[in-house]
């Protein structure tokens, strides 16, 4: 057992306990604070998964912004502790708990069995871009820098040849190519080959998987439509929130 394993179990324990406290605490202020804790722990877990920027973004956005809003609203309302029991014994409550447990069972079962099945299926035939055959071992892909960096200006003469398919595949995998399905011209193909092979022969400094640069390249090329859609979503949310907050309050009338 390595420290990674120990930490995963520690983080998982804290995350699950704080998640349970979110829903079973009668005081909404504590619920919100425990949710912030849960989100921070998940952020730390992302850090151990090499998703550095995602981890800090998770803490900034969820723990630092969204949950602050929740805490502020709960404190402003000055909601009292709920007097009603959350888990009182009744057929409806039992059904609810059973439904959630069943959902949990399904999710755990499918993910556990599914991963094992994929593992068995892929044993021996590793295809790049698919799940790695041995799912106990994460792909800590060390990716040559000049494959990621499309702007690498110099490309020396190559000794080892990579096929255009391989080069393109590597680029697609990193999200470096804005249009993975687009047919490249012969000249562009040649360039890709050059780049891929130049790296192999030169042994340049390598970039770690999950680096922010790789992520940004994917975010602003492959996901450009989603990125622009985000701006529209935020605009709508701004307008909606302002309109709602400025309204005199309430809906129409008490029924």
């Amino acid at each position, binding site marked *: 057992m*390595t*420290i990674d394993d*120990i930490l995963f179990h520690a983080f998982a324990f804290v995350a699950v306990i704080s998640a349970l406290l979110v829903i079973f605490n009668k005081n909404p*202020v*504590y619920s919100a*604070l425990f949710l*912030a804790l849960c989100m*921070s722990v998940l*952020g730390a877990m992302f850090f151990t998964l090499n998703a*550095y*920027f995602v*981890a*800090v*973004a998770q*803490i*900034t956005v969820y*723990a*630092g*912004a969204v949950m*602050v809003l929740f*805490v*502020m609203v709960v*404190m*402003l309302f000055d909601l009292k502790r709920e007097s009603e029991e959350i888990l009182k014994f009744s057929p409806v409550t039992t059904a609810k708990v059973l439904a959630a447990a069943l959902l949990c069972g399904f999710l755990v079962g499918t993910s556990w069995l599914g991963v094992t099945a994929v593992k068995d299926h892929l044993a021996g035939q590793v295809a790049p871009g698919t799940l790695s055959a041995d799912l106990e071992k994460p792909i800590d892909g060390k990716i040559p820098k000049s494959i990621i960096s499309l702007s690498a200006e110099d490309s020396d003469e190559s000794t080892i040849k990579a096929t255009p398919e391989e080069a393109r595949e590597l680029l697609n995998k990193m999200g470096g190519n804005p249009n993975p399905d687009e047919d490249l011209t012969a000249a562009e193909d040649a360039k890709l080959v050059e780049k891929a092979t130049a790296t192999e022969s030169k042994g340049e400094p390598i970039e770690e998987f999950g*680096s*922010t640069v790789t992520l940004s390249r994917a975010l602003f090329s492959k996901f450009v439509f989603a990125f622009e859609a985000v701006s529209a979503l935020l605009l709508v949310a701004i307008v909606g929130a302002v309109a709602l907050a400025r309204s005199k309050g309430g809906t129409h009338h008490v029924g």
Partner: protein
Amino acid sequence: MSGWAKLWIGTDMGNGLLEIIVNTIKIALIFFAVVSTVPLLVWVERRGSAFMQNRLGPNRVGPLGLLQLAADAVKFIFKEPFVPDAADKVLYFMAPAMCLLPAMLTFAAIPLSTPFTVMGHTFKMQVADINVGIIYIFAVASLGVYGILAAGWSSANKYSLLGALRASSQMISYEVAMGLSIIGILMKYKTFDLTKMIWAQTGPFNFIWQGHIIQPLSWLPNWGIFFQPLAFILFFTAGFAETNRLPFDLPEGEAELVAGYHTEYGGFKFNMFFMGEYGHMMTSSALITILFFGGYALPWSGGGPVQVQEFWMSHSSWLSQVIPLATGEAASVLAMLTHLICFSIKMGFFLFVYIWVRWTLPRFRYDQLMDLGWKTMLPWSLANLGATTALLFFARYNPL
């Protein structure tokens, strides 16, 4: 080696039991260094303010009133442990720690100096070398709001709650402007790593225009402030608001809100809020130094830290005779000390400016403060971002 120590091998805590122990001690030392700088800053603050207002300040206890710090500490420790009846007990006790922790965690990512090597073991002058350093600092700093909100709410006092709400609203308002203001400089450095930022600022002032390196004023250091002066002003101003210091100390406006969110706190618990505030102040001074003033690198030193290391390589034979160290190791230790002093001077200057401004400017009104954040700083940082983007577009985009 015990099993527990073995687990840490391969992490940034070092390789081997010795390095792990030394690194743990180093982390504790940096923490206590930050904590013990607080009374010193308080002393500077009180003496400095007295000097500015033509008073004497604390001058009775010890030389120059320096022992006043010890007297204050003793008083903090021997106060009656007081808890208001209506308080939410758990949060009331946790809130000071929730304020202190983010302040200390942000300082952890600050590179204080170059790494040094002793007996073949290399140690970094930094608690954690995080490759997304600057965003990490912003992320953790934004968690500081919880301590304030928790303190205000758990005290069950309306002054506390209103003070906490004011403080948190103000902090989040200025966080946006703060985040936006540094994007221009990030475009230039192309990294989130604080050490790489320092290295990007070595050498003389230069920039790239259409593929050519232009060096108009070679006597200027290559510091960020010369590229982004407006960003510096915005960042510095936002720093005051983030630390809730004058002229932005509305949360603690004595006339209206008593002492703000820590009205109901006393003794050591109050002291921890204080440590948190000064910790944030130190982190923000250190960040300004790193982003805009070349960090620990000496200005006009040519190749920066490399040059300093080489200088000590040829001038450190005397140290090798005093203590048994290889020349390279002695040079690395001396270079580390040089850079540490350089960093302390730069950071100390900004800490002094914080104190200076506090006793110079009057307090804003709350609506003026929010207007400044949303209607002045935010548009200006957006304008700065737009101008930088456009300028870089013309400088770098070459359709040919």
